[in-house]
């Protein structure tokens, strides 16, 4: 899913990011650590959105709401059966895959050929249905799951910081590696790659395009479920918890460029660190939300003005 020559650019960006990171380490070490942690989370949530956008060509505006469904599923397993959130990761992924496939079959599949207006509207409607259903089941009261390990911390070079959220970096690397392996080495992955490049051509050479779409949608939502289980120990669970992730994910996808999965991790780290820096500036805490939207708007506009849509 990468154009020729982008590997070189990837190294340049990586090098730039590492240099920046070292500079920030000396200036504000905790900002760097938390930036990397948050950034990995943004990236791993963005990967499935990018996958659906890249292969199906649908911008899933309900992305964040699927994440919220995952959070509530994990919370419910904890409350009713006492399952540890980390142990729920697999069952929650399966639940989310089923939910995702159901939503896909009932709605998204019908508008694949209907143009972007219908797709934007229908995923927006799905987002609303999911969040309002959660509201009517769980009310708007925030819930939390407390685990002993989620606030573990360590000291490194005289700086004290929480380590639990490094799990996001591990998941991000794992998911990224797994996806690359899947796309390059498996038959279904190669078919997926082909559908992403040219659905008509893929259909002509005998690829079951409809199955690939179904599979990609289910897999993407399953990844969202996996992440949500690991988020539960650290976030408060409420009906709007996942909503901001839709925009953040799209921002990263736009930054990386469509089809550039490695770029999403880099973009995520950059965005996470930038946010952490803004938060570290006195009085800047309230402005960190603007960072995401500002970056998103700038990236989209700069692409438009360079003529690449």
């Amino acid at each position: 899913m990468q154009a020729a020559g982008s590997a070189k650019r990837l190294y340049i960006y990586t090098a730039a990011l590492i240099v920046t990171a070292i500079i920030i380490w000396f200036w504000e070490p905790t900002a760097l650590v938390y930036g990397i942690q948050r950034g990995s989370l943004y990236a791993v949530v963005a990967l499935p959105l990018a996958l659906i956008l890249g292969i199906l060509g649908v911008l899933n505006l309900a992305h964040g709401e699927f994440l919220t469904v995952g959070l509530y599923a994990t919370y419910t397993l904890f409350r009713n059966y006492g399952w540890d959130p980390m142990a729920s990761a697999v069952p929650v992924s399966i639940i989310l895959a089923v939910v995702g496939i159901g939503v896909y079959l009932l709605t998204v599949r019908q508008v694949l050929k209907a143009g972007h207006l219908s797709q934007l509207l229908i995923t927006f409607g799905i987002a609303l249905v999911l969040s309002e259903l959660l509201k009517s089941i769980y009310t708007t009261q925030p819930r939390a799951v407390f685990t002993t390990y989620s606030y573990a911390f360590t000291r490194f070079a005289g700086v004290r910081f929480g380590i639990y959220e490094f799990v996001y970096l591990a998941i991000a690397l794992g998911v990224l590696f797994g996806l690359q392996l899947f796309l390059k080495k498996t038959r279904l992955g190669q078919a997926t790659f082909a559908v992403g490049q040219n659905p008509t051509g893929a259909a002509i050479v005998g690829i079951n395009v409809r199955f690939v779409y179904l599979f990609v949608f289910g897999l993407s939502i399953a990844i969202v479920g996996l992440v949500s289980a690991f988020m539960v120990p650290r976030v408060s669970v409420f009906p709007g918890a996942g909503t901001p992730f839709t925009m953040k994910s799209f921002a990263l996808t736009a930054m990386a460029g469509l089809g550039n999965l490695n770029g999403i991790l880099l973009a995520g780290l950059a965005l996470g660190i930038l946010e952490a820096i803004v938060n570290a500036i006195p009085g800047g805490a309230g402005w960190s939300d603007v960072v995401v939207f500002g970056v998103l708007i700038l990236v989209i506009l700069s692409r438009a003005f360079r003529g690449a849509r």
Partner: protein
Amino acid sequence: MGKKAMIIVCILVAASLPLYAGPYFLSVFNTIFVYMSLSLTWDMMLRTGQLSYGTAGLFGLGAYSSALLVAKAGVHPLLSIVLGGLFAGVVAFLLGFAVLRLRKIYFSITTLALTSVFAVVIRNLPRLTGGASGMVLPSALFSGDAAKNYWMVFALALGVIGISLWLSRSKTHYAINAIRNDEIAARSSGVDVFKYLLFMFVLTSSIQGVIGAFYAQQYAFVQPEATFSMNFLLLPLAMALVGGVYSTSGPVVGAVVLGVVSEYLKLIMPYGHLVVYGLIIVLVVLFMPRGLTRFVARQLARRGRVGGADRAALGN
């Protein structure tokens, strides 16, 4: 002829509502007209083929600018409503040079992001705007007189309907239809695409600003969460979809139907009654892309064995 008479009767009934209806009904219809106007503006922008998610953003800008003018500069509330619309229009004009170069999902997502940017910026200027807790104005518009407020919003809604009708008879109508159907073809036929997009964007944004300003003055209150609420995007959008997009009658009918339905729903399900809006959006896109009015009209036509010529809506 029957149609014309019916419209006149509707207008007369609506205009005389304060004479016999109680305060509850007045407030319900007041809200319906606010959403109806927003719905029409959203639809007018959609007629150019651009799906805007920024309705709530321009609404909020108009609301805040008008509230600030009254609270900090002592401007007359009615004048502040005009200025609120003007401010939203100027912002739309400046943003338009950048945003209107975007198409499809990029336009939609950018307008959605702009709404959040406006809200966050306003929340982070507590000295000017009152921050997250908002701002209460010294007195409401017309001292809170329900009948006068109702007539005001009714007049605004009639004005927006008028603009929408005028647009569908003007040269602009052909230009924006051409842009929606095939932008490249429109451009090669000599349509100045950017000019028309900018005109529509500024026009609809100014109206949204005026409605927002009126809303703020009527309740004498602005607050980031409430003023930039997604409801000001969501409800108009659902109303236009239900009534049928690319028309004046669609948003009008949709607003009345959904407005009345939502009042009922609020009573029977306090949590999550918006789920119905979500379902409506999904179902309309799936099964009635031409909207309720055209769906019903077609059913009637079929019953009367009169073939109706439908144009595919949303089908680009």
